[in-house]
């Protein structure tokens, strides 16, 4: 049984049969959705276990590795696949109680999104990567407009314009890469990228940076995100902030380190661009988040700033910084989804969208508010939780590599985050009346929030579950020769 291909075509098949199931087997509709996402999660865990022992390759159509399209799974891909599957499962549980209109189309889009994200992470082919990136983008545009009100349409339109232009940049870079090397196979590119002349290579790399950067909201290409993420339904905002932008980040990171190796990047000073764009992204995100009145907009700007941390971690190009960055990707996916899902409960059940109107929520929905508070404290980066560890790793790596200002910016960013998240927490636990009536909330809405926050605590207390595996994951990024050897042994 090969997990890699089933992780892509399984969700696709479910997506294509949902309409028929909705028409003829309505009774078991929910069961099919839940069980297929559980199955996806189990498959992803089993893939992760296998990949830790030995990276896998799969040739579609049984062609030779150089002739067709391949799927490649290394530990990094495995770890991201598990994150995608876990979040997908939790968000589907949440959506069962949350989404009321256009249910069939919603789940179809969600399953296609999962399949395409898995494809994006697992693919070993540059053009296939582009196809998956475009599917993910188009599904996200649709999901942003899902509420069908004016705000959602405007946000979605903005997202389409910037996302499509970004997509063209990526396509142009892929065309140039093929033109220069004659191959699209990522593993072959590891070897052949040395044929590309220096000018052309820097052109390709900057095209990739602009293209993918506009998709993962690198400042100043971030303008769509603060509109798009709040306009979507909460479950979708969680997914978009949690994994979709991380998926683009992964795709960019993979292509960058396949086209050029760390020493080349340092020689051409590209690492400075990465680190300082990270610093700018971080500061801009935090400062703008500080000014927000609406809770979901605040969370969206906070997502932008977290991209900055990850960029600093990646920009150091050391094992420690890189694994810190990837650890941050996973941690932020868990935390930000928890925050968005909790914010969705607040806005749907209690009609509290502004921070001001959150007053007293801590007494109306004690459990969810506690979850939100823990997640917010985690995101600030206070010690017993997981984000503290990843921020610490990134800051240490930055200092070791000689970047003092970025390390200071990480500290400054944490203080800024403290200031605006404390504002929210304070509102939640302000008592205006003596007795608040506890509002009954569906268990399907509560479970994902609680699971995600408790995962933050578990990973924070025992980071060694993940950290050694991250070290293993980074190896294939920093030494792209080893990625080559997955496909072509010897």
């Amino acid at each position, binding site marked *: 049984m090969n997990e890699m*291909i089933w992780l892509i075509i399984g969700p696709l*098949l479910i997506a294509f*049969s949902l309409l028929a199931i909705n028409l003829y087997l309505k009774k078991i509709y929910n069961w099919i959705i839940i069980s297929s996402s559980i199955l996806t999660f189990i498959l992803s865990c089993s893939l992760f276990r296998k990949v830790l022992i030995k990276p896998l390759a799969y040739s579609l*159509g049984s062609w030779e590795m150089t002739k*067709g399209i391949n799927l490649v799974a290394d530990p990094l891909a495995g770890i991201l696949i598990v994150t995608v599957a876990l979040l997908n499962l939790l968000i589907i549980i949440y959506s069962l109680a949350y989404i009321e209109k256009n249910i069939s189309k919603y789940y179809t889009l969600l399953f296609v999104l999962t399949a395409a994200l898995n494809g994006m992470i697992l693919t070993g082919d540059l053009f296939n990567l582009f196809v998956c990136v475009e599917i993910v983008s188009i599904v996200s545009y649709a999901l942003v407009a899902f509420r069908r009100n004016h705000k959602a349409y405007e946000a979605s339109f903005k997202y389409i314009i910037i996302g499509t232009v970004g997509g063209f940049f990526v396509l142009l870079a892929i065309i140039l890469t093929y033109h220069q090397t004659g191959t699209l196979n990522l593993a072959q590119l590891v070897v052949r990228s040395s044929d590309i002349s220096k000018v052309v290579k820097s052109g390709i790399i900057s095209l990739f940076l602009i293209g993918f950067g506009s998709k993962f909201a690198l400042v100043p290409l971030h303008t769509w995100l603060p509109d798009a993420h709040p306009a979507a339904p909460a479950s979708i905002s969680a997914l978009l902030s949690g994994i979709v932008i991380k998926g683009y980040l992964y795709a960019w990171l993979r292509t960058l380190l396949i086209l050029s190796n760390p020493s080349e990047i340092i020689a051409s000073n590209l690492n400075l661009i990465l680190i300082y764009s990270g610093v700018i992204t971080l500061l801009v995100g935090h400062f703008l988040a500080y000014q927000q009145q609406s809770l979901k907009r605040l969370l969206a700007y906070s997502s932008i700033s977290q991209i900055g941390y990850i960029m600093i971690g990646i920009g150091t190009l050391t094992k420690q910084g890189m694994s810190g960055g990837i650890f941050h990707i996973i941690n932020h996916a868990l935390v930000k989804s928890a925050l968005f899902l909790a914010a969705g409960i607040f806005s749907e059940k209690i009609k509290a969208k502004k921070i001001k109107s959150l007053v007293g929520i801590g007494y109306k929905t004690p459990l969810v508010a506690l979850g939100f508070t823990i997640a917010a404290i985690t995101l600030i980066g206070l010690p017993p939780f997981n984000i503290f560890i990843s921020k610490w790793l990134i800051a240490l790596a930055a200092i070791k590599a000689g970047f003092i200002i970025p390390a200071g910016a990480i500290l400054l960013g944490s203080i800024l985050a403290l200031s605006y998240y404390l504002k929210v927490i304070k509102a939640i636990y302000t008592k205006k009346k003596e007795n608040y009536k506890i509002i009954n909330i569906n268990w399907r809405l509560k479970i994902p929030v609680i699971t995600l926050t408790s995962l933050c605590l578990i990973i924070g207390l025992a980071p060694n579950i993940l950290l050694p595996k991250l070290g293993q994951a980074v190896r294939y990024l920093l030494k792209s020769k080893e990625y080559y050897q997955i496909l072509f042994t010897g």
Partner: protein
Amino acid sequence: MTFKKVYSLGLIFLLGILLVVTFMNFNQNNFNNNYDLSEYYINQGVQDTKSINLVTAILFDYRGFDTLGEATVIFIAALIISLLTKRSTSSLVYNNFSPLVYQNISFIVPFLYIFGFYLIFYGHLSPGGGFAGGVVIATIFVLLTITFGVRRTREEDVLRAKSLLENLGMAGFVIIGLLGMVSGYNFLANGQAGFYLGEAGKLISAGTIPWLNLMTGIKVGASLSIIFNCLVREVE
């Protein structure tokens, strides 16, 4: 306002000049290139896949997985448009044409069907294929809708039937791909899995390629006519 326009125009020109300057000497750099992959496709494609049309061979055999992704893009596009266009407040445009139009359209529709399915079934032998054939089939529905209109009461049923057909096409593509796995090889395996490739140039040849073409054709035809049906409604 005008300053802004001039400014952005200037910016675009500047970017264009930069692009030209950067890309100008690209052609000189690629003498040392090895296009072994495309040469392999040209030299070995027909033996490998028994499909005379090399574009189809690459599209549905060597890189069939990309095609699955591209078909999914159209599938999502149709889904999104039917999601975003509102159902309740709409009616179809209805025009009165001269009898000549009705007669002519009725006359050419069967030929269009034949042409569309010819493009699909001969996709591996001559220019065409699932995507092109699907578009031709979709134009039949477009023509019929424009000239004869659709009865409003039946519109929902028609749309549902088309959506089911579209889903069937997509699922069929994946299931044909799964046949390769059932026979012990990888997803979308064709010749490798020992399917009957036949003789290059015959109608029944090239293994699963014609079937994949058929599924894509059904899917594209249904998708495009769904898109048309959804967009043609006039909001009152």
